[in-house]
């Protein structure tokens, strides 16, 4: 049985799954319920001077029949008095001494930072998370992402906090910045013990086509909000990786953004996170998802022979390279497995219109055919094919050669002028532009009853037999 427990910058937790600072951690009731369900830790809903929220607060992005692939909110930090929160933190810690309770904080002046640090420490919090991330409402008041976007300000505030800190300090970063490593480095310079990322991404989640207003709508108006949920995972993963690979950051990372199941969590961990936080998925499906997450993680670790989380932290990092270090000699080619093909021809139209005209149609069958000379190995067809493993990308180079762009640059063999003979696509066959005309007509014309000259077969073949 693998050991899921972690010690994150001094914060101990029975497993790496924490609830992110957000509505699921609004109250002692919710946090206790989550711990009872199996969550390892909780970052309390951000504390500070209590706010006033608007009504109608969230918007969702649905993809076809899938709800909430993206989620956005215009909520602020906790709207409950500090004293109530402190009392509940104390109570939670009494019941769950071995679980991680981290207080998320956002205040303004040095005095306020000192005061609130003392308050949450004496309430028994295992650590704090400084919220420099909120991209709406709070930043307009000089807090949240307004701090996270100014590395110098961020560093100063971290230093204030460190003056009094007796428990580990995590700095939560905003993704609304060009280079995430800048605030991460500032956090390190300020003396922080760890970082967590990402907070939400500034967004407009949709526009109401009748009211001409952005969602969520508050009395006919709206504002930009913070974007999160499954759709943001790729952005979060990249930023986690950037921080993990940066030689000047070198802090434990709590990965956040789009985590909904064990796979998402493992991905964050493989790119350098050593704890993970979840918000949207818990808001969507409730605390019960933790059972699938821990079970999946355990199963994966068992299969891979990992004994502790630390056996896998950052394991994918050595394979994340700069583009110029990738092997230009490696080549894959699409391969259609005819026995699986259902003839939807999505691969054909994708490659024809969206890639390299490397798939052809043949008479008498709906199974398309790869024209190997044209296939550049882009993967598009295999991504659009609705049948699992129907199109596979097979390696076609012999595996003996290795040449990178960096090496070619050093050797002086890269294309340099506009019509360079060394252009990568020079010898790729491209149809004549005019060959496109009328091509759509070769496919079945809809509304055939409109056409004159309907084939007689319509009449003769379908007689209703008596």
């Amino acid at each position: 049985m693998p050991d899921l427990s972690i010690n994150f910058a001094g914060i101990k937790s029975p497993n790496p799954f924490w609830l992110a600072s957000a509505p699921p951690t609004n109250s002692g009731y919710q946090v206790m319920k989550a711990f009872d369900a199996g969550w390892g830790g909780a970052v309390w809903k951000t504390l500070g001077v209590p706010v006033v929220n608007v009504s109608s607060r969230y918007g969702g992005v649905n993809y076809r029949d899938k709800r909430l692939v993206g989620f956005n909110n215009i909520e602020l930090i906790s709207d409950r008095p500090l004293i109530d929160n402190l009392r509940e933190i104390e109570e939670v810690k009494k019941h769950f001494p071995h679980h991680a309770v981290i207080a998320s904080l956002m205040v303004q002046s040095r005095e306020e930072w000192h005061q609130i640090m003392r308050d949450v420490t004496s309430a028994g919090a295992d650590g704090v998370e400084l919220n420099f991330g909120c991209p709406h409402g709070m930043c307009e008041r000089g807090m949240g992402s307004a701090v996270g976007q100014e590395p110098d300000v961020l560093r100063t505030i971290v230093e204030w906090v460190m003056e009094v800190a007796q428990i580990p300090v995590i700095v939560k970063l905003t993704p609304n910045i060009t280079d995430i490593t800048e605030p991460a480095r500032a956090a390190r310079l300020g003396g922080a013990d760890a970082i967590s990322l990402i907070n939400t991404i500034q967004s407009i989640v949709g526009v109401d086509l009748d009211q001409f207003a952005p969602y969520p709508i508050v009395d006919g108006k709206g504002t930009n909000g913070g974007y999160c949920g499954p759709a943001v995972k790729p952005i979060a993963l990249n930023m986690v990786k950037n921080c993990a690979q940066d030689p000047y950051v070198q802090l434990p990372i709590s990965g956040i953004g789009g985590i909904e199941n064990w796979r998402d969590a493992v991905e964050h961990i493989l790119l350098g996170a050593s704890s993970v936080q979840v918000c949207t998925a818990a808001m969507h499906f409730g605390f019960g998802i933790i059972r699938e997450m821990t079970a999946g993680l355990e199963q994966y670790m068992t299969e891979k022979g990992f004994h502790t989380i630390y056996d896998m932290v950052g394991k994918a990092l050595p394979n994340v390279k700069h583009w110029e270090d990738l092997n230009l000699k490696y080549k894959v080619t699409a391969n259609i497995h005819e026995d699986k093909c259902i003839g939807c021809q999505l691969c054909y139209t994708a490659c024809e219109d969206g890639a390299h005209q490397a798939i052809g149609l043949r008479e008498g069958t709906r199974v398309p055919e790869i024209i190997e000379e044209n296939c550049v190995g882009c993967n598009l067809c295999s991504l659009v094919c609705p049948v699992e493993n129907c199109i596979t990308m097979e390696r076609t180079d012999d595996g003996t050669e290795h040449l990178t762009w960096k090496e070619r640059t050093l050797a002086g063999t890269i294309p340099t002028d506009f019509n360079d003979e060394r252009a990568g696509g020079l010898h790729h066959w491209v149809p004549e532009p005019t060959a496109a005309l009328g091509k759509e007509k070769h496919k079945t014309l809809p509304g055939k009853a409109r056409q004159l000259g309907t084939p007689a077969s319509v009449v003769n073949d379908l007689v209703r037999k008596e």
Partner: protein
Amino acid sequence: MAEYLPPTSEQEFHANFAQLKPRMNNTEALYESSRCLFCFDAPCIKACPTGIDIPQFIRQINTGNVTGAARTIYEANYFGNACGKVCPTEVLCEGACVYNLQDVKPIEIGRLQSFATRQVVESHKYLFEPGQPNGRKVVIIGAGPAGISCACELRALGYEVDIFEAKSQPSGLTVHGVAPYKITNEEVLAEMDYLQAQFGYRVQYNSPICSRPDLLALEEAYDAIFLGIGLGKTNALLLPGEERENCVGAVEFIEQLRREHHQILVGRKVIVLGGGNTAMDAASESARLGAEDVILAYRRGKDDMGAYEFEYDLAKSVGVKGLFNVAPVEIVGNGRVAGVRFIRTATVDGQVQALPGSEFVEPCDMVIKATGQAKQTSFLSLIPGLQLDGKGRIVADAHTYQTTNPQYFTSGDALNGGAEVVNAAAEAKVAARGIHHYLSAR
């Protein structure tokens, strides 16, 4: 043991004849439309006789443009709603859906189609209007799927259109012949009203065209004549005892069923003679009317039946039993039907042969003859120069459906010998274009 009790009220009738393809709600439509792959050169389009751009309308439903979806459907097929419910989709669009090859349930194209069209029908959202009047007049005989579709297309092209219909309602066999569990009368007629409100053709009901003088008057008053007359009564069996009470033709029985619903009387034990789709319908309908035993008797083996497999499955599912390799020789009884005398048969080299000495009587109190509809040959013989083929079908040009009398055009069952609503709808559009071509060239 009967599966159904005889319905005694309209409500019970509708329970026994519950819709096989019930209306989708918005969520169902969203889920189902989300599954469509938007195939290139989609096989479902090719399999639809009217060539509805199926992936396009499904995508429109999915993006919340239900009105646009209905337009896509109606542009190809004026019986869009009816077809969604009554088409044998298993052998048409849905049968061609690529999901079948993955052993995944095909997209429910028919139900999605009716989902979209029914919304515009019910909300009276009009999508079409008549074209600029072009000063020409066309008369249509028969307000079935062929006649109505032709009328819509001609009106869109600017023709003045009059329809003469023998019966008191439009849509032909859609309302008089199709099984009630496929579509209700109200739903059929609502679509007819919807079409007429947009296209504004005139229909004279209870106005059969029967005689040479009737036809002559039309020939003189109109530029072209469209024959959408369908087929005739059930073929006679020419067997002794056929005139006995409770020995009825399937088409006539079903027409009465559609008109009278639960008030129609069905026997306790019914024998249906035939192996086609109409036989399956009549058998299913008898069972749903509460007949205790329904026997489907067919001259050849089960696999030789003309009916679609799913239609036979449907009949079996309501308790209908098959009796194969038997030929009726006499309807026995005393005034009323009391049974059918059969002789057993064998099929040798494709020929049905009676087995001497194998006769037996299967008792019953009702016989439904589902032995095909006769062609309207005597009426058609009143039209000068009009040729029929060996099977009594009107001979017409395959591209225009112009008959051998150039003033006459045709489509639907009268032309194809008896197919589906969707075929009539498809052909009638072609015929309307043919009429347009012919009259424009004059």
